[in-house]
């Protein structure tokens, strides 16, 4: 029973991080109809920026959140303005932007190899190994903090999208970009802003992930897949759907440790995806993303 509670709590804490990164991928797709295949690249970049700030300037990873978010936001806008914007809109552009963003990912990975070598890195702080007691369990301070930040981020994002003018404009563009142009919304600006927000979420997820796990230039490809599984499971656009799907994935992964050799746990999410596709072609909740 103790073990069971432990695993459930571990899954819940992990789900916060998963929801954050998946929401970034889903937001960009929902608004621009572009799958950011560079999602993993930004996650990796976020991890390295946090690591660099910690190694060189001794900045605590949690204090470097604004810097990491800003860097990945600007990086996202640059990628959108410099590259993605020049592709045709619509279905033909969808495959092209996929290949293009894949190219950007390769470049980022290569850059990381050159700058930081392929070695595994970790961000180690004095509280890395500390834990707090709750539910009769010892919880890692880091994991609790990551969960808290992730939940806070999602709440802020939800409020931003539902309460502010810009947020409403983003949702309106997701519904119908043409009508938005007619009523005077600067759709181009919304696109680049959305891309920036999506990549900022990815960067944040990278930083948070880096405070829990070790990483190298290939870091992020697993997270791209996980984000993708969550988007398919949870549907686009709903924070609740994303959170629920993130929780499901985290639970499955955590409990898979009991049954499977550790090298296979990385493949669990994907098996879950295929099972869902076979059994529930419509996805679990919300809007469908399947053809």
């Amino acid at each position: 029973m103790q073990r069971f509670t432990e695993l459930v709590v571990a899954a819940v804490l992990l789900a916060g991080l998963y929801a954050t990164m998946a929401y970034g991928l889903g937001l960009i797709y929902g608004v621009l109809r572009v799958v950011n295949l560079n999602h993993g690249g930004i996650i990796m970049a976020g991890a390295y920026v946090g690591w660099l700030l910690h190694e060189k300037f001794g900045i605590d990873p949690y204090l470097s959140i604004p810097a990491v978010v800003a860097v990945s936001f600007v990086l996202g806008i640059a990628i959108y303005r410099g590259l993605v914007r020049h592709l045709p809109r619509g279905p033909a552009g969808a495959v092209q932007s996929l290949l293009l963003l894949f190219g950007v990912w390769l470049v980022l990975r290569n850059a990381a190899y050159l700058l930081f070598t392929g070695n595994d890195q970790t961000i180690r702080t004095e509280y890395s190994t500390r834990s707090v007691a709750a539910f009769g369990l010892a919880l890692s301070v880091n994991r609790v903090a990551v969960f808290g930040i992730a939940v806070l981020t999602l709440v802020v994002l939800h409020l931003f999208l539902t309460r502010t003018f810009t947020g409403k404009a983003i949702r309106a563009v997701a519904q119908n970009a043409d009508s938005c142009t007619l009523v005077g919304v600067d759709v181009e600006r919304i696109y680049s802003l959305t891309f920036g927000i999506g990549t900022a979420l990815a960067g944040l997820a990278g930083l948070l992930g880096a405070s829990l796990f070790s990483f190298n230039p290939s870091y992020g490809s697993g997270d791209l897949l996980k984000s993708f599984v969550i988007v398919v499971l949870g549907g686009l656009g709903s924070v609740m759907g994303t959170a629920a799907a993130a929780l499901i994935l985290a639970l499955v992964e955590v409990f898979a440790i009991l049954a499977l050799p550790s090298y296979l746990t990385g493949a669990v999410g994907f098996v879950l995806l295929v099972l869902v596709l076979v059994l529930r072609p419509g996805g679990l909740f919300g809007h469908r993303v399947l053809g």
Partner: protein
Amino acid sequence: MKLLPHWVSRPALAALVAALAIGAVLPKVLGWSVYSQNQVTETLLFVAAALAWNWMGGYLGQVSFGHSAMFGLGGFISARLLLALHLPFWIAWIVGGLVAAGYALVWGHPTLRLRGPYFSIATIGVGEATRLVMTYWEDLTGGSSGLSLPITPGLKSELYWWALALMGAVIAGSYALRKSTLGLGLLAIKSDVDAAADVGISPTLMQDIVLLLSGFTVGVCGAFYASYQNFIEPGDMFGFDRSISFVLMAVIGGVGTIIGPAFGAVVFVMLRQYLIGSYPQLYLGIYGVLLIVVILFEPLGMMGLFFRIARRFGLLRPEVEATLEAKAAVGGAAADPGAREGGAP
């Protein structure tokens, strides 16, 4: 007397036969060294693999980042058969190809419900999951120490003609898949999967057929590669780099065209040779830059350039060029992964 289906162009057939005939005598005529002949063999092999990838990526518009799974599986199944049963190598290749095709169907049939970008991401998952499992499945792959195949004296140089035949068959297959009535159906699916279904096409069936053909061919290429290298290990055979290389060959040459990926493969093999020799730390980034540049400036790659040049010199009428480009176009309306059985209005 009508021996050929109506969609076979005699000049094209003649050109293929002539090219293969010239290719067959080339090593003797030019007196190639063993080294150069092997280089050409490898190039021909990847021409075949790139074309087979293009059946999925270009003809169906379903870009796969997971074709290394079939390449590797074909290789290891064939290697195990050669080691255990001492079969003639071509039987082992075919069995390897069949197993690869079966595997492609197992993961592809469900994931092909996903259209366009979503399918592509799922294939990254397929590739990674397969690589993980295969790396640890030592009974099949020998784990990280890999497998060595029995050495047959003289086989390596003989493989040149096998590669030529394989490539010839795959080029003919590419042509047939585009020009035949099946090809017309594939183009319709790529353009608009729902509209295609509404006039009586079964997209599931057609996609599964292409998946099987592509999986089989790439599996055979993997098996061939195993015989050619004499040693294979899962990290190389199932690696993400392997999958990317198929994508790059096709994109450089011209995704969706009949012959473009063949040129792309030639360029890619030479480029990789050069990069790995001269800039081993940069090749991944250079692939990335290549992808970006091609997609931004000439989405149809070398074939796109060729179309442009041909039109400049009046060799290709603009209407014909437009039709050719439309057929090659990377995605159609089908690339929208929007639900086909809609949700609530």
